[in-house]
């Protein structure tokens, strides 16, 4: 016998379902007036320092079809690599955004500032990136991934370095389509499947 280990176990996840918007983005579901506005409309306010960028993409299933019911959340540091709440963080960066795949086209858009590099444990630096979390019908536990940028130096990033199959690294790197404009598609399954994180 041993002493009892009085740990609790994490509550199991369940899918957000097709109507995840009701709780997270009520106006998307057609619900007005319960809250003054949806939560997480923008990760930045006027005056945020840094380059304003736009990331567009789709969440694509194993058949190649873009999800029309996906919910996405992003979390990031400011242009100097400080997370909200840390000393010296940009007061105009909340860092959090909630957005949905369009109900007709499946396209999503995230408008934000490009984050700066942030430290990893042990002194290494992580290349600029935005964390993403995806919930939808058919996704039984929310999927974590990251958006990196093709016009940044990603060569020393510790997470990208951990990906054994280097041919999968581009799945985490947004491609530049114009000044301040990037494309980032998320492939849930199959050819060029996005690297998802257990982190």
């Amino acid at each position, binding site marked *: 016998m041993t002493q009892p280990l*009085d*740990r*609790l*176990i*994490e*509550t*199991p*996840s*369940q*899918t*957000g*379902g*097709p*109507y*995840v*918007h*009701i*709780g997270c983005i009520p106006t998307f*579901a057609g*619900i007005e*007036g*319960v*809250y003054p506005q949806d939560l997480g409309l923008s990760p930045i306010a006027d005056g945020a320092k840094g380059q304003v960028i736009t990331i567009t993409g789709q969440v694509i299933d*194993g058949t190649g*079809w873009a999800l029309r019911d996906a919910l996405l959340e992003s*979390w990031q*540091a400011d242009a100097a690599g*400080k*997370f*909200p*709440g*840390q*000393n*010296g963080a940009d007061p105009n960066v909340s860092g*959090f955004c909630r957005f949905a795949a369009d*109900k007709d086209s499946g396209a999503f858009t995230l408008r934000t500032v490009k984050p700066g590099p942030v*430290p*990893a*444990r042990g002194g290494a630096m*992580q290349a600029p990136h935005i*964390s993403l*979390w995806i*919930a939808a019908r*058919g*996704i*039984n*536990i929310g999927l*974590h991934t*990251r958006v990196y940028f093709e016009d940044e130096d990603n060569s020393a990033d510790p*997470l990208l370095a*951990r*990906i054994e199959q280097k041919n999968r690294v581009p799945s985490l790197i947004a491609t530049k389509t114009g000044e301040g404009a990037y494309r980032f598609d998320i492939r*849930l*399954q199959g050819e060029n*499947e996005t*690297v*998802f*994180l*257990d*982190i």
Partner: protein
Amino acid sequence: MTDLGPLVPRQRDMHPVPYDPDYKTSVTRSPKWPLLSMESTPSEETGPRFGHSMLGPLDNNLILNYSRDPDKPAVGERILMHGRVLDEFGRPVPNTLVEIWQANAGGRYRHIKDTYFAPLDPNFGGCGRTITDDEGRYQFLTIRPGAYPWPNRANDWRPMHVHISVFGHSFGQRLITQMYFQGDPLIDQCPIAATIKKRSQLDRLVAPLDMAMARPLDFLAYKFDIVLRGRRQTMFENQLEGM
């Protein structure tokens, strides 16, 4: 002196399987390749914080927060849904946002894409939110949602359930789950509930009737505690610069 270390790695076998043929939509939406497992970084250990000041007085009262009229409450069995948010070490998670959404008493969602012919309740929106107190406690006043059929196998029905979204204090703690109700026979028929393969874990999503918290001649109560990932506390890992 202890510092907050990395997030405790997720015990994936305590969660639903991502791919389950009986839940058909999961077949094309579940990653085929293994997840990349890594120790958390500041990107996962930080997360959005929301203040109590953003809440309206009716935000956690789904019986009234749509009609906004005490004479026009939502139809259905009135219930108090309450519990605590804790971490794996049993510590309360205070000041964290809890959001819920649900069908009405007839099993119909107020959503542009729900076409089930059970009627909408003109006085029920179906969403609510609150922020836990210093002890990690939360409460919602709502109505018990109805069961409803859904297109999956030929005759699948969802048990009565409330969807719940919790943030914690770290983006890596992010969790969406569902609360079921004690005694509902549809739980054992449901392919979504059955994506959780450990019965003891599924049982943790079934809220017991809590008569001690019921209000006589007003509402019944169900208790639902939520456990989020914890962060290791250690004397051997120094805080990160700038944290």
